């Protein structure tokens, strides 16, 4: 999936201005700072690689761990750590388990206890996979890894969007601008809720479908990304559009219809996942950020109840974490945990 700000960068200054107000992220490729109102790696232009690492702390007190991580992260992204001399646009996003955040069991969940839960999550992203892995190693050296997954994103095409392993544009419909981000993504304290789902796709089975059948599953054209209700890539979906015989132009079980926020009465989540391939199968390391976990849960229920994509996927790891508010040299990463918990 392509982050919102990449599109903004490609589409010009208006989008950029809207984002810079909310984003502590860098422009692609340039060195960054970890400091800001929010952590980096959420509204940051999506980099080419992302490594997700879930850690167990085994009852170690969390605040000192977070303080140390925060300091290390700032050293890493600013290029002051010996292990990663050229971090490029590296970002690290830290989330913590929160007893108030619980995912129900969903229809396509097929993981054991070792692939959910965990005390901490690190999302390490960058354009240079070597820097991403080196930084991940540096940060997890003293901790037990519960599960992890390295992912990559499809290169942006001429239209500014990358494709996922099904060959479809991804990351088109996203919350953008201050208003949508504060409605759907950022909590009042600058934190956000992160859901991660490792979704293995039956890419071969999907590719056995004729292209128009694939398009009916997703609800968009494979070539252009335009919704089946018409227009072009960025046209809004017209969920009510019907044929004269009464059938929806975007089929009743199309992924984009089932996932559309209108039907849940909740705002739109920000999706920032990575494709993966390897021993674990291949698929989408789905990552979403939302102000309220219900945005994800209600959407996932709707997908369970009728998403045509269900036939081609199963979920092999899952987690939900609170991404702590941004931090600074004087107010460390663990500060909010001290204050409120």
């Amino acid at each position, binding site marked *: 999936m392509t982050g919102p700000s990449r599109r903004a960068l490609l589409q010009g200054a208006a989008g950029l201005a809207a984002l810079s107000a909310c984003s502590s992220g860098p422009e692609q490729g340039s060195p960054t700072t970890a400091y800001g109102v929010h952590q980096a790696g959420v509204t940051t232009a999506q980099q080419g690689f992302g490594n997700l690492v879930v850690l167990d702390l085994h009852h170690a007190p969390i605040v000192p761990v977070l303080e140390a991580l925060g300091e290390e992260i700032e050293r890493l992204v600013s290029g002051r750590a010996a292990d990663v001399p050229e971090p490029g646009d590296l970002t690290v996003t830290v989330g913590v388990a929160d007893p108030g955040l619980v995912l*129900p069991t969903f229809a396509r969940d097929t993981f054991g206890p070792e692939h959910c839960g965990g005390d901490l999550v690190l999302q390490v992203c960058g354009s240079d996979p070597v820097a991403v892995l080196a930084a991940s190693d540096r940060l997890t050296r003293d901790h037990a890894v519960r599960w992890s997954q390295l992912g990559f994103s499809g290169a942006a095409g001429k239209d500014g969007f990358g494709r996922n392993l099904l060959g479809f544009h991804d990351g088109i*419909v*996203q*919350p*953008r*601008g201050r*208003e*949508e981000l504060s*409605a759907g993504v950022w909590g009042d304290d600058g934190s956000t809720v992160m859901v991660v789902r490792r979704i293995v796709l039956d890419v071969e089975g999907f590719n056995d479908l004729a292209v128009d059948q694939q398009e009916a599953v997703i609800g968009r054209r494979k070539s252009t990304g335009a919704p089946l209700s018409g227009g072009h890539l960025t046209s*809004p*979906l*017209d*969920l*009510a*559009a*019907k*044929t*004269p*015989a*009464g*059938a*929806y132009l975007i089929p*009743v079980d199309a992924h984009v219809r089932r996932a559309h*926020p*209108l*039907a*849940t*009465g909740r*705002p*739109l989540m920000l999706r920032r996942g990575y494709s993966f391939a390897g021993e674990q199968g291949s698929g989408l390391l789905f990552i979403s950020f939302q102000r309220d976990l*219900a945005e994800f849960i*209600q959407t996932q*229920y*709707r997908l369970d*109840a009728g998403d045509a994509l269900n036939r081609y996927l199963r979920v092999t790891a899952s987690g939900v974490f609170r991404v702590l508010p941004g931090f600074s040299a004087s107010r460390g990463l663990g500060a909010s945990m001290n204050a409120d918990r």
Partner: protein
Amino acid sequence: MSKARHVRSSGAHIRRGSRAGRLTLAIAMGGIGMLVFPGAQQAGAAGDDGTVSVRVVREINANGIWDHTAPILEPGLPGAVVTVTDPQGHTQSGPTDDQGQLTLDPSTSSLTGGKYRVSVSNPDPAVFSPAFAAASPTAGQTSLSPSVDFVDVSGGKPASITTGFWNPSDYTQDNPRIISAHQRDAVYGVGAGSVYTDIYAFNRQHGTIANSYASGSADSGFYVGQCLHCDIVVTDNVAEYNAVGYESANSTGVSVVRNRFSRNRVGLTMSSDYQEAFAPQRKAIVAGNVVSDNNEAQTPEQADGGFGIGIGLGGSTGVEVLKNRIEGNRSAGLLVSPAEDLAAKDNTAKGNVYAGNGTDLAFWSSAQSGGTQANCLERPAGATTYPRPWRAVLGCESGRGPLNDAEDIAPFRTVPGPAGIAFLDVAPPGLLPTMPGDPASVPYRRAQAPDPIDIGSLTVPPRTWLAEAARRSAR
């Protein structure tokens, strides 16, 4: 059954289109009488004219009155362009100021005659609609004029007009009586391209939809939705050969009585839908209707796949289904289910007659919506149910507390519907009774609160109820 979407938030991403473009009688009626030009007037010396003062306000509560004392303060709307036109077509115009006010002096212009048309342009048609005038303002109140009105400033008399625009998402508005009690109106295959709903009252209050006929809709024949305290009665209508005969979404206070919803794909639904404001669907009465044989293939399809359903309640609260004849619906006679995270609760079904339905009474609940909630769905002797052990799930004898809270009953599977036919190909109805007298002479009246319904005296209608208006094949 998902309906389209109305503007509720400005979130640019969650695009709620408007229902504009759907031909709706309600809206068409609301505009009647506003644009008539009152004949050419005797020319008079322009220099004699008084001033025309216009105040444009933002109507909030849709009562047709400019409320400018606490607690309701309806502010002025700046930048609305006011145009004064004389019978020869000369004009004078200007925008309202920060307070929403403008005073024009025709005596300094080329206007002649002293009697002028005053029109106020909508400052933002995407947001505002013209406000309706109050039926009967009391002394001291300023009733809102229509956005096109007429003034007489001859002989130096000044005139002042207060008009308003309202945003439907601020409040619902009064609704005129849609079809007069004597008219049997054939609304059939209206327009071309995209007909969804034939007779359609969206965001309206206080009115009656009566003695009307709807057929060939790809959505619902009759629709009442997104209204709080709707105070709308739908009675003595026939809907056949539609995807859905009658539909309500997110309405509170609608009574659907003594209609015939037969030979559609789905007879009647009352559902909650987050795509429109005011979810969930609340209090409604569905009584004394014939809801039969809703398995019709010769209609547009119900886009969400509905077929063979008599009455469907989706995520609704407090709907009473009383004394209906519910027969021959191949999936289910009455189907009660959750909608998203909204459970069906406090709904009642009593005194209905069921026969020949795939399943007479069907109910399911979901963990997503918090499990099974209290509903009093009476099962007459011999009626079939889903799930089979009806008593264990729901029953009126158990009172109102939540029943088996954790229960999560697998969704009821309806019979799959055949492919639909284009709405233009739906066969036309036979000759329908028309309104006695000259319909054009019927005066336009403002909203009338509907007459109260005496449910107690209703009886289950005979199978042939209103069948004379139905197509021969559907009687």
